[in-house]
């Protein structure tokens, strides 16, 4: 990037700086991020993130798949919170189709999106604690994340790439017994949040590592296009769920936690409180879950039931059309941004009237957040680089796409 052509020799001291390659296979870069770091002792003089090791051509592949199949690709971008990616994608397609899914479906989507946010934050908490050298929180958080994945598996049949949300509805309605199991999780989780806090918040080493580390000014953050928890840690109460509600978020009561300091500790505190808020939303969603249909009644978009296909000629035709040609989306373009666990997750689709999109672009918040890394670690210690990477919570699947 900026310092590409610079010489390694310091013009003033004549000493040669050490250049260190962190990654792409390094314990703490959270995937296949590669950093070219220039060091003076252990002080970082320049840091250049090199991305693309996980590039799988997701955006291009969209163009070859019918709209329902594209959902599967969205799972694989931010693989730590696939459900929210599903949500973003299906909302965009639904906007193009100008349809609105029934209330029950919207509530279920909110519920799973928030569960997914908690799961994503748990991965962040575990791995960033691990980066600091604390190994046990990783196991404690992943144990709770496992419970969320179990819930997702119960509903969607898959844990990691569920594709639970479909254009026009869901894959299926909530299975019997789901509510009880969800409540068991909701009742147990606050205790674990306290445990995490007890283990980390009162630990002087943890505070020492986090406070004042990897700071950035608000103006700079906005220039880099920061959103989500990172921006909220700088005191901006920007949350798409509040400012631009989608999928009935306006029905739910929750707060947008903010912090002022903009350091790693502020990001930590924001995310911890976000988990609490997400819990509140999930509880409201399951308690006020409306009865009724869970997908649109339009058979040209949502396939008919299997039993119906076996009996009705018309249903069979719909089914065949949907799974060969797909539904036809009227020409136009649409962008929907949702509040992902890492920031504003956006999906932009151009349709030309066919069953496949003409062009899809995904705004992966990790990519924008990662841009600021060189500014975050300039003139800091090597250990702070790891802390900074952990705190911006990147998923390389989303960065490289």
């Amino acid at each position, binding site marked *: 990037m900026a310092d590409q052509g610079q010489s390694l020799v310091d013009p003033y001291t004549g000493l040669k700086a050490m250049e260190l390659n962190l990654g792409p296979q390094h*314990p703490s870069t959270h995937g296949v991020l590669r950093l070219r770091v220039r060091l003076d002792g*252990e002080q970082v003089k320049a840091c250049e993130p090199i991305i693309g090791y996980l590039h799988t051509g997701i955006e291009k592949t969209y163009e070859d798949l019918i709209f329902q199949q594209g959902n599967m690709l969205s799972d694989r971008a931010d693989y730590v919170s696939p459900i929210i990616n599903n949500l973003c994608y299906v909302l965009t397609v639904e906007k193009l189709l100008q349809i609105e899914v029934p209330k029950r479906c919207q509530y279920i989507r909110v519920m799973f999106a928030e569960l997914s946010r908690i799961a994503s934050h748990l991965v962040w908490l575990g791995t960033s604690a691990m980066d600091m*050298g604390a190994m046990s929180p990783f196991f404690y958080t992943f144990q709770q994340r496992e419970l969320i994945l179990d819930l997702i598996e119960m509903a969607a049949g898959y844990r990691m790439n569920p594709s639970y949300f479909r254009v026009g509805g869901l894959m299926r309605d909530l299975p019997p017994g789901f509510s009880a199991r969800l409540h068991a999780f909701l009742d147990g989780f606050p205790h674990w949040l306290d445990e995490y806090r007890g283990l980390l918040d009162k630990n002087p080493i943890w505070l*020492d590592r986090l406070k004042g580390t990897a700071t950035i000014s608000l103006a700079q953050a906005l220039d880099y296009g920061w959103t989500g928890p990172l921006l909220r840690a700088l005191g901006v109460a920007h949350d798409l769920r509040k400012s631009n509600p989608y999928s009935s978020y306006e029905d739910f009561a929750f707060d947008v936690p903010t912090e002022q300091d903009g350091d790693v500790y502020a990001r930590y505190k924001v995310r911890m409180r976000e988990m609490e808020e997400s819990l509140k939303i999930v509880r409201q969603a399951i308690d006020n879950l409306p009865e009724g249909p869970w997908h649109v009644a339009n058979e040209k978009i949502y396939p008919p039931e299997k039993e119906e296909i076996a009996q009705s000629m018309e249903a069979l035709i719909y089914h065949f059309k949907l799974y060969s040609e797909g539904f036809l989306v009227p020409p136009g373009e649409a962008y929907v941004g949702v509040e992902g666990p890492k920031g504003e997750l956006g999906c932009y689709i151009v349709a030309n009237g066919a069953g496949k999109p003409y062009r899809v672009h995904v705004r992966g918040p990790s990519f924008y957040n990662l841009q600021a890394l060189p500014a975050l670690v300039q003139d800091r210690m090597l*250990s702070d680089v790891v802390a900074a990477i952990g705190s911006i919570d990147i998923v390389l699947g989303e960065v490289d796409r």
Partner: protein
Amino acid sequence: MLQVVIVVVKSIVTATLLLAAFGLMTWIERKVLARFQFRPGPNRLGPAGVMQFMADGLKLALKEEIIPTAADRFVYLLAPLVSLTAALIAFAVIPWGPPIHLLGQVVPMQIGGPNIGVLFVFAITSLGVYGPILGGWASANKYSLLGGLRSTAQIISYELAMGLAVTGVLIAAGSADLNTIVARQYRLWFIVPQIVGFIIYVITMVAETNRTPFDLPEAENELVAGYHTEYTGLKWAMYMMAEYINMITVSALATTLFLGGWHGPLLPPELWFLLKVALFMYFFIWLRATLPRLRYDRLMAFGWKVLLPVALLNTLATAVWVATAQ
């Protein structure tokens, strides 16, 4: 002649016991850590997976020996040996039981008992740090180099405070001979009058052995594996052995200096000694399961600005106390 035989036998027994303790310790550490983290830990080989360390050792012995082309071969091969040798020698002066009578001879339960026992341990453990430094330098790897550098900085910052923490005990006991120090604690363990020294010693002993939260030289998430990044097979195992045996040595020294050595009621003295050492070893694992890692500059600041002055004050206070008591 008999003296020589006894010393040789004792050396072999001690070294064997230490290496066996190392093997067992790796298993205990993994098992205890697993319990902290809701995992079963090793559980396949032998009862409760106790034979796991045999399998690990065998695996390491059969590993391909890789020496980086850019490495300084001689130093690269020497470094782990330095670490292991120093670790094994340091334990030699620690008395792990009262003297026994054998073949008409009084046999002290330690290999050698110089009257400067404490200094000997410090001298040898300081030598041991050449292992990480040389290994880190000779590997021709930047991560290793950084690990070696950190190791040096850490030792410089902590040895001093450690030495001063122990000075309090030496003044109180009036001797640097470990047997005398143990004998002086017959009535009252030095942990009571020397509580400050004990706390400083415990902190520095963790730093000395490069364990969490002072495991910066091998900080996995920053430096891959620090100074032993380029080491494989048995050479890597030697570093590990050195680390664990060092843990045992510093724990044994803590026991000797502060917890009354092998003194204790009812149980045989050797068992008491073992129990006290085990307590410290558990403490090491507990720390590893709980704490994050310090940052390099903060670690040095802590060593120089907090531990050293406090240790100095403690030494002064002890000296004044002893002088006025006489």
